[in-house]
């Protein structure tokens, strides 16, 4: 049940934090922090147990050694729903990411005064629900967490956002819920057409022989939800707004976590459940991804709002992830996995930095910023690091991931490989634009006087260390992702051969 604790601890932590201030003032952040740290401890415990004792997943045939932990218990047997949580390396990596980012965001919003209890709760719940997404293998429970995940994010945008926050929050919700309907319909379909007792057990469904045409349609339902969350053009319209209007911690969780759930879903389920459908739809995914990576980069080149710019780079990078996954070869999928992790670090850090600038001068317009180099050298130095990460400088995890995706693309089709390479070139254009406007030059209208504080620098250093560490010593990450990649690639190749 330790797996459940990874979800429940943050959830109840958020619940307690919501009411903690009624008893002792200013305890909400301590509660939130404690619950997330405890969740992290539980995760470490589970991981260690899984690694040390080997597979504990006797219930899954033919995949011994892949699963670090498995938990199965009844939830609503009447509906055929069970609590089926499983963790392999992919889930584990993303769980670490989710809890880590949760802790970072709690620290970052330590001095928040406005409705702090609710903010802490929302942070904890975001982590809890996305942990649920990363762990659930009962498709209905997965869909349940998937939909639930939007609520805290929605709250964060709607309450602590900037500008037209309500409209943005609704846009966010509408986009994702309508897409979520596709997922729900597909899940219901899978459940209700099961022969024998109704079940949503992904492993059982994966073992089932579904008609390829049906697979295409059901997969389309799944993919819609994932691609909107990812987001891939033309489904991305919610993201720039959401990123721009959300508070800094909201942007960090959006970029670091919520986008990753879409990538995770694409990574995990299409190949596992619908290999035939995947084989049919993957070329279209590649086209979308190729379009998105160029398109996102081009639009980013023209942005004036720093956060929007970074948001569009997210679009471009997540399109690379889509390409990697749809490529369906070992290199590209591994690359997609690494880009997911790397993007979580780099985009979160950039949002953090821009948020810090915004806190100081009240604008994110890059035409008004400048002179960071002279006034705030620590700012400039960290900015330079994540600037390099954004344009995939070797040595950062971003480069490793993109290089692997490109390698895989060469195996698939050189056209896609060259498109990815072109996007690498364009990334320099937008990254230098952002960098030189913000860091270089004389101070324009908005002068940043105060350098990064230690409370800001701490999280940034953690993120920077992650970027460089996984860029230079990615072996651990690759070993963790390998079983999931192998499983997916194996399933795809079994069909295409």
């Amino acid at each position, binding site marked *: 049940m330790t797996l459940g604790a990874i979800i429940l601890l943050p959830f109840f932590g958020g619940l307690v934090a919501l009411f903690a201030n009624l008893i002792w003032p200013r305890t909400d952040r301590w509660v939130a922090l404690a619950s997330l740290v405890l969740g992290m401890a539980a995760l470490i415990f589970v991981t260690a147990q899984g690694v040390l004792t080997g597979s504990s997943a006797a219930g899954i045939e033919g995949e011994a050694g892949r699963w670090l932990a498995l938990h199965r218990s009844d939830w609503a047997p009447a509906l055929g729903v069970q609590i089926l949580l499983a963790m392999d390396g992919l889930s584990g990596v993303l769980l670490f990411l989710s809890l880590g980012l949760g802790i970072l965001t709690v620290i970052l919003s330590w001095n928040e005064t406005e409705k702090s209890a609710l903010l802490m709760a929302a942070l904890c719940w975001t982590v809890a629900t996305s942990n649920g997404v990363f762990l659930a293998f009962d498709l209905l429970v997965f869909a349940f967490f998937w939909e639930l995940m939007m609520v805290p994010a929605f709250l964060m945008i709607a309450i602590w956002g900037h500008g037209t926050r309500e409209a943005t929050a609704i846009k966010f919700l509408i986009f994702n819920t309508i897409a979520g309907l596709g997922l729900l319909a597909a899940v219901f379909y899978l459940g209700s057409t099961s022969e024998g007792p109704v079940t949503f057990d992904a492993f059982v469904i994966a073992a089932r022989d579904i008609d390829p045409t049906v697979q295409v349609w059901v997969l389309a339902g799944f993919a819609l939800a994932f691609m909107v969350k990812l987001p891939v*053009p*033309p489904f*991305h*319209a919610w993201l*720039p707004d959401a990123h721009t209007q959300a508070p800094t911690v909201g942007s960090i969780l959006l970029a670091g976590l919520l986008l990753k759930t879409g990538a995770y879903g694409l990574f995990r389920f299409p190949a596992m459940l619908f290999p035939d459908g995947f084989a049919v739809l993957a070329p279209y995914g590649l086209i979308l991804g190729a379009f998105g990576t160029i*398109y996102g980069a*081009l*639009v980013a*080149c*023209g*942005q004036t709002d720093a956060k929007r710019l970074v948001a569009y780079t997210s679009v471009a990078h997540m399109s690379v992830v889509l390409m990697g996954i749809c490529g369906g070869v*070992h*290199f590209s999928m*591994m690359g997609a996995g690494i880009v997911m992790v790397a993007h979580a670090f780099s985009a979160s850090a950039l949002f953090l930095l821009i948020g810090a600038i915004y806190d100081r001068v009240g604008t994110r317009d890059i035409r008004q910023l400048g002179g960071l*180099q*002279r006034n705030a*050298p620590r700012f400039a*130095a960290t900015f*330079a690091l994540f600037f*390099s990460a954004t*344009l995939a*400088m*070797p*040595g950062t995890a971003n*480069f490793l991931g993109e*290089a*692997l995706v*490109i*390698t895989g693309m*060469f*195996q698939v089709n050189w056209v896609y*490989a*060259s498109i990815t*390479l*072109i996007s*690498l*070139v364009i990334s*320099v*254009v937008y990254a*230098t634009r952002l960098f*030189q406007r913000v*860091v*270089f*030059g*004389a101070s324009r209208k908005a002068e940043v006087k105060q350098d990064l504080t230690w409370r800001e620098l701490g999280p940034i250093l953690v993120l920077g260390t992650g970027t460089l560490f996984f860029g230079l010593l*990615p*072996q651990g990450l*690759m*070993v963790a992702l*390998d079983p999931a*990649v*192998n499983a997916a690639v194996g399933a795809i190749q079994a069909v295409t051969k």
Partner: protein
Amino acid sequence: MTLSPALILLLVPSFALAAFMVLGLYPYTLRRRQVHIIALLGGALPLLIMAPLTGLCAAGHCLGVVPIFTLTVGQSVVALALTLDPLGATIGLTVSAIGAAVLVYSITYMAATSLADLRRFFALMNLFLAAMLTMVLAGDSIVFFLGWELMGLCSYFLIAYNTTSAESITAGRKAFIMTRVADAYLLAALLLLFLHANSVRLDVLIPASATLDATMTIVIAALLLGGALGKSAQVPFHTWLPSAMAGPTPVSALLHSATMVAAGAFLLMRFAPLMQLAPAVQVAAAVLGVATAAYGAMSALFQQDVKRLLAYSSISQIGFMMLSLGVGAPEAAAAHFVMHAIFKSLLFLAAGDITHGCVEGTDLSSMRGAWTRKPVSYVAFVAGGASLAGLPMITAGWWSKEAILSAVQGFGAVGQVLWLGAVLTALLTGAYASRAIMIGLMPMRDSDMPHAGNVHRHEAPRTGTIWTNLPLMLLATGAIVAGVLVTPIMHFLGAEEPHASAFSVYVAAAAPLLGVGLALALVFVPRLSEGLRNVRAISRKARKMPRRGEGGPQSRFVRLALWLNWGMRFDGLYQVMFVRPFVKGVRWLNGYGSAPADPVGTWPMLALVWLQQKITAPLAPDWFDKLWMWGAAGVVRLWALVRRVQTGRVRDYGFAMAGGIAGLLLLVWGTP
């Protein structure tokens, strides 16, 4: 990773890297002296390690491949390694030596900068040095690419070092973007090789390329060539280099003489065995090389800025290296690499010292009176210039260039044509090099100095500090006598003694001398020197290539000189061909044109609006159709429409109910 003595190789870049990290990340304020010490340690220690290692290597005890650690990606094994082979030793030693010299020189040169900027400067210089050394010593394609890219990043920061100058920022960005294009080619080539050989180790990769099929060989070779051309500022990727002169002089000396721009040549030297499998690509390299060389020389001849002149000369000299590589003589190219590194860094440093603090910056006129103002630097400049011009026998440059020319002549019929081009280029080289030297001999003229700033010039010390003079003198010596090393280097790298016909040697020797004559004409024939003064005035005033007829009638000579001064207007061409369409496209995508911002994101909305306008509007009077077309009309409008159904009159409600009943009854009645 096992500990072995060979791991000492790892230390070579590590010291420079460590210096970067200390300077860049050390949180407390360092004093100026400490910054100098750290920077010098980072700059000099690699040389101290490289020198004995090279000696060992020359003695036949090369370290070879030094594995660092190994990654597994699925079935593929990625083994990271460093390597020390003769090529790496030669180039590595050169690079570390030049690096050390430049860093030493910088201490005086950068004396006026603030402490924070100084820290940044030295940190980046050290990082750059580390990156270059890493690339040179790389034993696998990943580490190679790491160093290669990191250089690009550092060059961006260094060229844009003066962050308040729009010109230097733009120049940095231009350099970064253009070299990034080349990087993309290289990355593609490396990944394709990796896929083929299933290894990243160069010692596996390059031999394995023999088993590539013909098409793939050409593709990969072409990609490598593209990468090299871009990084080495060869035509057609060369335009970033003249702009990059906006950076400080030591940066130019390091980046644009020995290291970054020559990296492309080094790349082709590394992959020479592969290139030889694709003769078509080689010929292309040779042709492009000679074209670049000629182009660079012609443009350099009419430059009015000493640094731009040197930049074009770099382009030109690396063109020679490319030519040599193209004709299958990488050893000669390596030798020229070494010589070029020595004399070009020397030229940059000397010119920098001469023009330092001048009001007109690095304009050629700042060179005037150098002989009297800065005798040491001027002598060094003359030595470097002579070597660049390739004055026969007495300069190092002549020996290496001669090796290349000999190799070209041995390249068959095509080789003869190429040789001719190369000799003509050598003539031009002699001309522009000696032109700069001659201007240094001319007295200062107050008419050239419109500002009171020339006071500064007079007050500058006649001789620099030991920190400037020592590297200048050492390099000047090298520029003259290092010619004796050309043959040993080529032997070391495994090449035969270059031999050419006596006639060709005479011709090649005569060419630079003729060039000197041409320079004399340019400087002292009144009509020509007057024309050049016109060019200077126009180009300084307009900051752009004047259109025909603009600024009064010009003689054909002036127009030609202007055209060449502006690098044959490649910049304008690229502006029209790439930059403007790109900017236009981006602006269009962001809503400056007729389209909305982020058109794809808004297309669902647009589609709805379009549908509404095109389909629903003409049918507006027809309520029945409108009901059917509700999907297009927008749901909210539908709401406004539908809510009127709820009229509030009970009779209407009853009417609706009656309608419902009637409908159901009709359904029954109408269904058999």
